């Protein structure tokens, strides 16, 4: 055991921790597919999937067996390289973005000085999944879905970045751990940055292409949009990627606006993970409740809302925050 020096042991432990976080995020994303169907069912006065296992909890296993044994079929008219690449991007982009999330004081994958910007970069790259899937499918409905996605992206990406700049101005750092520490010492950002929270939450829903921003895959008009030609595990990767996006954005909302692993009023500092998980779970439920309760706007309405309401709001928020930060110095 001579190779097991203290540094080596640290590296191995860090790698194991990162693997555990990655697996936890993927498993959460996969389990959400059952949680969402079950909750939607209960809210709509029906049962949802309740046959496999206690309360249908093993539905995920049944789904996986089904998807793995389905024929992995590429239609003859698709562009095979890009058709295969798109689901990989869909699943990995926001999963990689999770590395900047500090889960507890001791758990977290990477402590980047440019943590927040790293999330923006990965959110920007996640768009290519939809674009490439829509184009390579060589299908009218898929292409319309991809066009909607890119039009939407151009309208939400601007205020996605600007909505968080108020936080950066107050903390003076892009580092996620600095942001959490600042909130523990002062006040959670939900209070001073309420406008930033509102706009970032809207942009976050749009990043994951979830209801009410799911125009790229609107079932009623364009029959599932960009992933219409996908089957089997490739389709499953789009599906799991969407849920990973929900987990990611919920964790980010908790980290940026709700004090990360800290409890309210400094309660119970011994269980940081419990607070983090509780708050993240709350936002995941909020995502599902949004889908259950809101109608879907037209995509030109979404774009007009983004440019005419959210962008001015974030600019006002940034200006006021900047003035206050300067006045306090």
């Amino acid at each position, binding site marked *: 055991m001579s190779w097991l020096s203290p540094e080596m042991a640290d590296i191995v432990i860090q790698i194991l921790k990162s693997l555990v976080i990655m697996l936890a995020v993927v498993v959460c994303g996969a389990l959400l597919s059952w949680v969402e169907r079950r909750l939607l069912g209960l809210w709509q006065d029906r049962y949802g999937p309740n046959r496999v296992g206690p309360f249908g909890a093993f539905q995920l296993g049944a789904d996986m067996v089904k998807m793995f044994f389905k024929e992995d079929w590429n239609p003859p008219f698709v*562009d095979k*390289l*890009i058709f295969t*690449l798109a689901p990989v991007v869909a699943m990995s982009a926001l999963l990689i973005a999770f590395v900047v999330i500090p889960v507890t004081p001791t758990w977290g994958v990477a402590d*980047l*000085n*440019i943590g927040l*910007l*790293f999330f*923006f*970069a990965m*959110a*920007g*790259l996640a*768009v*290519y999944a939809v*674009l*490439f899937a*829509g*184009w*390579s499918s060589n299908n009218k409905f898929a*292409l319309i879905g*991809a*066009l909607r996605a*890119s*039009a939407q*992206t*151009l309208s939400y*990406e601007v205020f996605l*970045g600007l909505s968080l700049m108020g936080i950066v101005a107050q903390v*003076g750092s*892009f580092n996620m751990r600095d942001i959490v520490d600042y909130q523990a010492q002062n006040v959670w950002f939900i209070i001073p940055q309420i406008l930033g929270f509102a706009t970032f939450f809207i942009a976050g829903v749009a990043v994951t292409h979830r209801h009410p921003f799911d125009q790229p895959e609107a079932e009623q008009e364009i029959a599932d949009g960009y992933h219409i030609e996908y089957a089997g595990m490739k389709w499953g990767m789009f599906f799991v990627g969407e849920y990973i996006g929900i987990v990611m954005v919920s964790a980010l909302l908790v980290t940026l606006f709700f004090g990360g692993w800290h409890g309210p009023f400094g309660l119970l500092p011994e269980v940081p993970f419990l607070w983090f998980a509780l708050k993240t779970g709350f936002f995941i439920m909020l995502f599902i409740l949004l889908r259950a309760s809101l109608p879907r706007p037209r995509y030109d309405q979404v774009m007009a809302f983004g440019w005419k309401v959210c962008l001015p709001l974030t600019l006002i928020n940034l200006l006021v925050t900047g003035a206050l930060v300067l006045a306090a110095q």
Partner: protein
Amino acid sequence: MEFAFYFSAGIAVLATLRVVTHTNPVHALLYFIISLLAVAMCFFSLGAPFAGILEIIVYAGAIMVLFVFVVMMLNLGSSTMAQERQWLKPGIWFGPAALSLVLLIELLYVLFSSDVTATITGESVDAKAVGVHLFGPYLLAVELASMLLLAALVAAFHLGRPEAKELS
């Protein structure tokens, strides 16, 4: 760090070569995205994480989305690929390539004849230092760039206004 720099620089050069030589426009754009990511990696390895991440956000995340959007709208099919193949005949690219080779040799000569001893030290420049420089000594360049962007914005608004559509 030097290994990381040369590795990503090599990938950038290879990917850019494929951008030029590929006949399918969307595949060429895919290589272009990879080239931009590799350039961002170069910035990271040189110790400029802020510049690197902005390269990804602005170029790979925003500008390339527009490129892909337009190419998708044009729906370039097999006729474009045939035309590209026509353009990529040796007789057409040989002249420009030979002239560029002369420039490359000149560049290499200048690089190797001047005794610059700058090495990659691995120290990183944070966002604050970039901001202090941009709004300090380079303030005039920032203001000029913002005026240029404002002019472009006004022009785009003029072209896209609702009355312009009604007149035509």
